[in-house]
């Protein structure tokens, strides 16, 4: 069941309506049943994996709570890690490593007989695995009391708005909220719906529309050249941002209707002036997860300069692998890891250099350079991320500048026919392209306004006709300009 489907449009009001009709102490049961139903709409049998994760971590948590002895607590933590990561490995990574091993053996003309594991990737497995792991780690660290209510804990693992693509919630934030007795409020519902509408706008008006052009280029890279690769990567940046942040908005908005506050997952990442800043603004729930449960345990920045660079690199290497079982994702993570380490290495000299020029983060030239650098590296890495194979990725990187000079020369001499010809071959009509560009401008305009604070809060101070005009425009844009015929599943579902 996708958030942008008719199925969800019927499911959500029904669940909300019944939820608030049920006595408060029984609501968890209903929400858990609704969450399991939501998940089972993809593939019924995979609910078993969620139930196993839930049971293992529930009992591991309780067991850790019963003892103060660190060694014993560690045993239960390891049990949780092995079972959760084991499931993740079996269903997500086994075939990847198996096929890589097979290719390596074949290269050396050696026999390799381990068969392919014919299984579909369970939707959202990386998300709920990381969420439930954060619980056992926090219990181990003594920062979270073991949850004694199995039903509430199961709901924490499977709460449907954020089950399949996050935000990856921390137990310290989410678990206590399931105990709060909430009632239906106009404010929560209206605010939640506004966020859902904004998320849908990003998904169906922008992401799905430009996704057609992105797919056209990346599905047949040998038919295109450098200009299209650069355009494709830049468009994919917007596609993946609108797709994923759109999902997060809908998840957060949905939870808000139930009176539950989920964490912010995106804060205008394309306004960042360094990669480090971008990763503080992009998929925040995952970045902070890696920071808290990988970077810091590895020693963070406390074990010398070289180890710090290594730790930073490792975070992104693992993050690449988290995204998907393919070498393109590993390469993508490694590119980020290298550039993040380089950023750290050059931080002081850059500071001296720009200081000498009397330029700081508030300077417009400094910001423009920072934005250009950040988006160039981010988009370059996305080119690798989106490529269907490593061979395609290398091909595109090798030919990244083919035809760019000629194209720019033509554009600079005012020959706009080359632009028309280029865009014509990418699968969107002039009308569709115009809608996409206008929608991106609306998004950027909104994000500029967000620098002054929450859009909903700003809009709340305006006269009613202005507020309703904005709401009508957004809903009308979704209804009339939503690319429903080009609809694609949310990109992050596959992770």
């Amino acid at each position: 069941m996708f958030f942008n489907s008719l199925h969800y449009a019927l499911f959500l009001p029904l669940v909300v309506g019944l939820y608030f009709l049920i006595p408060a102490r029984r609501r968890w049961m209903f929400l858990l049943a609704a969450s399991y139903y939501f998940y089972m709409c993809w593939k019924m049998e995979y609910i078993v994996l969620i139930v196993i994760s839930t049971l293992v971590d529930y009992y591991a948590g309780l067991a850790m709570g019963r003892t103060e002895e660190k060694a014993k607590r560690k045993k239960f933590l390891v049990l949780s890690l092995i079972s959760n990561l084991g499931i993740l490995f079996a269903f997500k990574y086994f075939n990847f490593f198996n096929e890589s091993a097979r290719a390596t053996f074949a290269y050396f003309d050696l026999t390799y007989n381990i068969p392919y594991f014919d299984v579909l990737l369970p939707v959202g497995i990386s998300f709920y695995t990381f969420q439930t792991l954060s619980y056992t780690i926090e219990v181990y660290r003594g920062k979270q009391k073991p949850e004694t209510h199995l039903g509430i804990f199961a709901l924490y693992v499977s709460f449907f708005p954020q089950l399949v693509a996050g935000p990856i919630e921390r137990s310290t934030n989410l678990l206590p909220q399931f105990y709060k007795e909430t009632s239906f409020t106009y404010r929560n519902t209206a605010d939640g719906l506004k966020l859902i509408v904004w998320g849908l706008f990003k998904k169906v008006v922008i992401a799905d529309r430009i996704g057609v052009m992105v797919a056209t280029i990346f599905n047949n890279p040998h038919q295109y050249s450098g200009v299209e690769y650069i355009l494709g990567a830049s468009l994919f940046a917007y596609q993946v941002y609108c797709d994923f942040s759109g999902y997060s908005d809908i998840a957060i908005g949905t939870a808000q209707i139930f009176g539950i506050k989920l964490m912010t997952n995106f804060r205008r990442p394309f306004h960042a002036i360094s990669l480090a800043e971008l990763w503080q603004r992009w998929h925040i729930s995952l970045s902070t997860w890696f920071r808290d449960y990988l970077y810091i345990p590895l020693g963070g920045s406390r074990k010398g300069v070289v180890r710090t660079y290594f730790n930073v690199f490792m975070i992104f290497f693992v993050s690449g692998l988290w995204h998907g079982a393919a070498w393109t994702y590993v390469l993508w993570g490694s590119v980020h890891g290298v550039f993040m380490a380089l950023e750290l290495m050059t931080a002081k000299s850059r500071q001296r250099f720009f200081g000498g020029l009397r330029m700081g983060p508030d300077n417009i030239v400094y910001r423009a350079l920072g934005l250009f650098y950040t988006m160039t590296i981010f988009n370059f890495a996305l080119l690798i991320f989106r490529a269907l194979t490593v061979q395609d990725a290398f091909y595109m990187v090798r030919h990244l500048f083919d035809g760019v000079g000629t194209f720019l020369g033509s554009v600079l001499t005012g020959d706009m026919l080359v632009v028309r010809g280029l865009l014509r071959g990418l699968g969107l009509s002039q009308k569709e392209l115009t809608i996409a560009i206008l929608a991106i401008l609306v998004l950027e305009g909104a994000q500029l306004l967000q620098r002054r604070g929450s859009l909903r809060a700003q809009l709340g101070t305006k006269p009613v006709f202005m507020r309703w005009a904005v709401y009508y425009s957004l809903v009308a844009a979704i209804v009339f300009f939503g690319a429903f015929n080009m609809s694609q599943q949310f990109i992050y579902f596959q992770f």
Partner: protein
Amino acid sequence: MSVEVTKFLKKLAIFVLPFVLYSAVIGFIDPFNYFDSGSPVRDELKQDISFKLNYAMWKMLEFRQTPHPDLLLGDSRMMDMDAQAISSLTGDDFYNFAYGGGSLKEAIATIRFADDQTTLNSLTIGLDLNSYNGSDVKDRVSEVLGALDNPFLYITNNTVMIAAWKLMKSAVSGQPERIGQPVGDRDAFWRTQLDVTARVYFANYRDPVLYRAQLTEIAELCQEKGIRLSFIIFPSHKDLMDRIQSYDLEEANRMMRQDLAVMGTVYDFAWDNASTRNRDNFKDPYHFTPEVMASIIGSVWGNQPRFVRIYGSGSAHPEPVLSDLESGGPR
């Protein structure tokens, strides 16, 4: 019911009211006869307005109601072909399923749609190097296919909205809306077609890998189901054919003919002859006059070949035979 719930439901009702009213208006006017529920707007007026705004939607809905076994597919040049004249010439039941500005992608999607609707007897696809081109990926059909099964997508379709608006305006003013502007200066338009349109197509020519594969699939389907598959390469003026040479696409042009010849019968009118050299035979470098259209119909369906090279004949002849078909004589 709590005060909060009542407040929410009231505001929600007010908010959705315009959308409900809009849906009711679309349902009432029904610009493309989607609901087929006796709309008060005359069909002739809809044909004048709705049809021109979205050929694919009009034709697919029409075809769904009354399927035909013999199809003509392609762009504006095929759309100009008189299906009734062809039907009376052959005794078959032809339907013109071509769209103005149509792409091969749209034609292929249309064939799949039609094959789902009825038992097909023949397919005649009009194309040239503009459309047999990997960069010509225009697709107006998939949104129509989505709308065919989903009334929400029909009601919210842009062209449905515009058609409804124009139909209302026409009904109120009594003056039919003009769709599409007549071409002004013929010479200027001729130059634009050569310098702009041809350039946009030919300068960005890409090997049609996907089209080749999809047409091969269609050819296999035709062989399996006994459907006659033919291609018409329409005549274009020599000025335009010369552009193929200047963009160094002669090999691609030759390959296209070779590809098509393997799949079905090819009626090739696009070669240097007295007809394609005569400017009076063309409205612009791409579009021929009604006289030429009549000659094409006679050549393809009337057993009166003129200025045509006929070759191929499909999978029975795996090797295309191009060389012995210069005569233009009857097959």
